[in-house]
C-alpha cells in the first residue's frame, strides 16, 4: 500500500483538459520524479496535491485514508509543503520574517508558537549551512540576497514545516551547482528520515542524480512509473512523447524565399545568453523547448519592449536598435503578446479602438486628426479578413470570446502591414475553431512573404506550422530542427538536452 495515492484525477480549465484521469503513487522514503512534456499536466497534478488547484474528479489517499485538500489548513494537517520556481517572498522583509509569515503553528489556545518555529527554522538553516559551507543571513531583507539564496529561503520555508510530503517544482532553476548539491543533500537526509519527495525538473541530469523512481505524464494521463536505475534518458523521452510516435502529416508549407529579413547575432539580455539566427521572408520560425527558457524574452527584446545588453539585430540588412516598441513597429515588426488580457487588449475600450490603435498614425491627417469613417473602414476590413465575430465595433473588447479577442490582437497588426510578426503562444486558451483559423491565417501571411516567429507551448502546433524550429534551453539556442528532424521525438529530446551535458 503506497503512502500517497492519487487516482482518476481530472481537471479542465475552460475548454482545455489539463488532467484526464491521471494517477500517481509513491512511497515514503523515496524521491520520486514527475516528468512530462509541456502541458502534460505535471504542474497541475502537483498543485492538486497542495490544494492550489481543486480537481473536478479524483481520489487522494494518504496512508490509506482518503483525504480532501482544499487549502493551507489541509496541507498543514497532512504535512505537505512545496517549493516552486516562482518566488513568493516579500522583498522588504527578512528571510526569517518571510518564513514565519507563512506559518501559524498555533497551540490549542490559538497562540503562535514563535519560539518553537524559530528553532525549527534555525535547525533547517544549520543543516544547509553544513551542506553549503556558508551561512545565509536570515536577518537581512531578502531583496538584498542573490536569486539563488532567495530560492533557498523558499526551501527553508517548506522544510521548517517538517513535511512528510515535499514537492520541488522546478525549484533548482535559479540555483548554482553548489547550491543544488546542498539542496540535494538536505533532501536526501529528509528522504532517509522517511519523507516522500516529489521532484519536478526539466534537467534530466538532476532527475537521475537525485531520484529513485519517475512517473511520466502525457496529455494529462499517466503513462507509467519506472525505476530510474533501469532506464535511459531516451526511454523517458519515448514515454513522454509516445513510443515511436510519428508527427501528423504536415501540410507542406510554402518554402521561404532566400532574402533574410531579420538577422540576430549574439543577443544577450534578460534571460538570453547569446542568441543568433536568421529569418527569411515568408518563413515561419518556431521557438520550441520547455516553457520559460527565454522564448518570450527573445520576442520582447526583438520588439524593443526589453533592452538587450549585448548583440546585434539587423532588419532587412540594416542594423537597428529598438528603444521602444514604436521603433520596432516603424520597421515593420508586430508582437502578439503572450497574455492577451494584460498585454494585448484594452478590454474596456471599444473593439474599434483596439483594432486601430497600432495603425492610426498611418491614417492621420495634419497633426493627428482621425476620420471616423476611415477608422471604421479600417476596422471593418480587419474584422472581415479575419472573420472576427463581433456584435458592434463600439462594443467593449471584453465581451468577446478568447478566440475572437486573439483575432483582434492579430488584426490590429495587420492594419499596419507588418513584415515580421512575433507571436508568443498565440493559441493559448483559444478554442479549436479559432485555432484552425489562426493557423490558416499564418500560412496565408507567409505566402505573401510575411515572416513569423512563433513561440508555442504546443509541440504539434510548432511542428505543423514551422519551417524550422529553434529549440531554446536556458536562454540559448540548444538545437535547430528542420526537414526530417521536425518530429516530436526530436523536439522533446532536444528540449530535454538528451545526450548532451546539461
Amino acid at each position, binding site marked *: 500500500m503506497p503512502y500517497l495515492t492519487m487516482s482518476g484525477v481530472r481537471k479542465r480549465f475552460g475548454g482545455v483538459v489539463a488532467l484526464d484521469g491521471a494517477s500517481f503513487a509513491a512511497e515514503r522514503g523515496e524521491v520520486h520524479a514527475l516528468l512530462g512534456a509541456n502541458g502534460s499536466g505535471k504542474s497541475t497534478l502537483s498543485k492538486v496535491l497542495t490544494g492550489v488547484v481543486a480537481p473536478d474528479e479524483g481520489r487522494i489517499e494518504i496512508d490509506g485514508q482518503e483525504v480532501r485538500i482544499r487549502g493551507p489548513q489541509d496541507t498543514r494537517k497532512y504535512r505537505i509543503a512545496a517549493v516552486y520556481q516562482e518566488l513568493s517572498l516579500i522583498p522588504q522583509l527578512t528571510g526569517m520574517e518571510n518564513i514565519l509569515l507563512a506559518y501559524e503553528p498555533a497551540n490549542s489556545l490559538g497562540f503562535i508558537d514563535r519560539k518553537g518555529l524559530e528553532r525549527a527554522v534555525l535547525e533547517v538553516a544549520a543543516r544547509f549551512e553544513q551542506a553549503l559551507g556558508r551561512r545565509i543571513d536570515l536577518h537581512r531583507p531578502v531583496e538584498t540576497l542573490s536569486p539563488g539564496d532567495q530560492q533557498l529561503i523558499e526551501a527553508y520555508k517548506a522544510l521548517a514545516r517538517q513535511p512528510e510530503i515535499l514537492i520541488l517544482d522546478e525549484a533548482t532553476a535559479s540555483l548554482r551547482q553548489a547550491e543544488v548539491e546542498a539542496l540535494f543533500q538536505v533532501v536526501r537526509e529528509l528522504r532517509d528520515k522517511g519523507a516522500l519527495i516529489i521532484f519536478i525538473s526539466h534537467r534530466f541530469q538532476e532527475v537521475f542524480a537525485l531520484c529513485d523512481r519517475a512517473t511520466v505524464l502525457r496529455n494529462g494521463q499517466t503513462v507509467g512509473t519506472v525505476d530510474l536505475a533501469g532506464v535511459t534518458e531516451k526511454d523517458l523521452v519515448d514515454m513522454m512523447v509516445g513510443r515511436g510516435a510519428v508527427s501528423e502529416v504536415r501540410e507542406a508549407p510554402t518554402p521561404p524565399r532566400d532574402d533574410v529579413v531579420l538577422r540576430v547575432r549574439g543577443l544577450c539580455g534578460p534571460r538570453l545568453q547569446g542568441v543568433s539566427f536568421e529569418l527569411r521572408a515568408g518563413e515561419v520560425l518556431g521557438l520550441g523547448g520547455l516553457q520559460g527558457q527565454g522564448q518570450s524574452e527573445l520576442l520582447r527584446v526583438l520588439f524593443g519592449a526589453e533592452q538587450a545588453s549585448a548583440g546585434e539585430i539587423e532588419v532587412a540588412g540594416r542594423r537597428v536598435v529598438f528603444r521602444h516598441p514604436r521603433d520596432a513597429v516603424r520597421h515593420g515588426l508586430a508582437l502578439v503578446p503572450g497574455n492577451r488580457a494584460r*498585454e494585448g487588449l*484594452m478590454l474596456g475600450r471599444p473593439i474599434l479602438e483596439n483594432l486601430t490603435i497600432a495603425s492610426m498614425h498611418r491614417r492621420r491627417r495634419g497633426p493627428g486628426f482621425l476620420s471616423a469613417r476611415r477608422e471604421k473602414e479600417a476596422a471593418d476590413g480587419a474584422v472581415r479578413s479575419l472573420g472576427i465575430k463581433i456584435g458592434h465595433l463600439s462594443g467593449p473588447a471584453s465581451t468577446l470570446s478568447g478566440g475572437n479577442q486573439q483575432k483582434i490582437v492579430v488584426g490590429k497588426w495587420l492594419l499596419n502591414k507588418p513584415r515580421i510578426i512575433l507571436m508568443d503562444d498565440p493559441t493559448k486558451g483559444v478554442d479549436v475553431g479559432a485555432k484552425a483559423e489562426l493557423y490558416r491565417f499564418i500560412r496565408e501571411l507567409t505566402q505573401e512573404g510575411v515572416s513569423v516567429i512563433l513561440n508555442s507551448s504546443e509541440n504539434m502546433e510548432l511542428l505543423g506550422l514551422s519551417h524550422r524550429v529553434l529549440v531554446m534551453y536556458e536562454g540559448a539556442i540548444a538545437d535547430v530542427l528542420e526537414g526530417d528532424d521536425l518530429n516530436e521525438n526530436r523536439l522533446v529530446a532536444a528540449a530535454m538536452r538528451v545526450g548532451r551535458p546539461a
Partner: protein
Amino acid sequence: MGRPLNPVLIAFAIAVLLFVVGELVSPGFAAYSQIINVLRVSSFLGIIAAGQTLVILSGGEGVDLSVGAIVTFGAIVASRVIDGQDAMVLWGLAQALAAGLALGAVNGILIAYLKVPPLIMTLGMASVVKGLSLVYTKGQPSGRAAPIMVRLVSQETVFGIPGILWIWLALMVALTFILRQTTFGRSLYAIGANRQAAYLSGVPVKRMVVAVYSLSGLLSALGGFFFLGYTQSVFLNLGDRYVLPSVAAVVVGGTSLAGGAGGYVGTVVGSIVLTVLQSVLVTLRMEEAGRQIVYGIVLLALLAAYGRQYRLRQ
C-alpha cells in the same frame, strides 16, 4: 436588465432636479438670469477640471492635486503683469500659461520617468508652487484684472450669455473632438485602459503622461486667469477651493477614477451639478457646517449610485 444609464445623463438629470428643488424653495432660483449666473460660476471649476479630466483618464492612479496652487500662481502672474491694463492682457495670459505649462511638465516628467506616484508628486508640487507664489509676491500680491477680463466674465452678450460661457463651450467642443477624433485622444484612452497593451501597440506612454500633466498645468493657469476676471484682485489661497471639487466634478461626470473611460462633457455637467448643489444649500439658508456635510453626503450617494451601475454592467 436593460442598458445601464449613462452617468452623464444621470448627472444632467440631477442638475435639472437641483434647479427644480431650488425653484420650489425659493421662487426665482431657476430664472434664466439665475441659471446663467450659476453656469458662470461653474465655468471656472469646469475649466480647471478639464486638465483633471485628462489626468484621470490617463490612468496609472493619475490625479493632479496641484491644480489649486497653479490656479493661484497663474492668477498672480497675470495680475502682476496686466495690472489693470487692457493692452497687457495677452502678454499676461501668455506668461501665466507658460508658467502653468512648465509646472505641469515638471509633474509629468517626474511621474513618467522617475515613477513618483501622482498623488505624492502633485501634492508636493502644490506646496512648492505655494512657496513660489510667496516668493514671487513677497506675501503681497499686486496688480489687478484688466477691464476687458472683467467684462468677459460679467458682461452679457448674445442671449444674455457672458463671454466666459462661450469660451467654456468652445473648450468643451474642442476637447471632446480631441478626445474622440485625434491620435492623441485615442492614445490617452489607451494608456488609461491598459498601459502595457498601449505600450506594446507602439503608444509612447511616457510622453503621453508628460503631455497630460503639462496640459493640466496649462488649463489650471487658464482657469486662474479667468477667475481673476471674476475676483478682480488676487489673494494667496485663491485656487485652493478648487482642488478636490475638480476631482469630484470629473467623477460625478462619470469618468472612471481608474482611467480609460469617460470624457469632458461629463466633467462639464459634473461642475454644474456641484455648483448648483452649493447654491441650493445656500438658498436653504443652511449653516456652513451643514452645507459641507450635505455636500459630502450627496457626493457619496452619487458615487455609490455609479458604482452600482458599473457592477450591473459586469
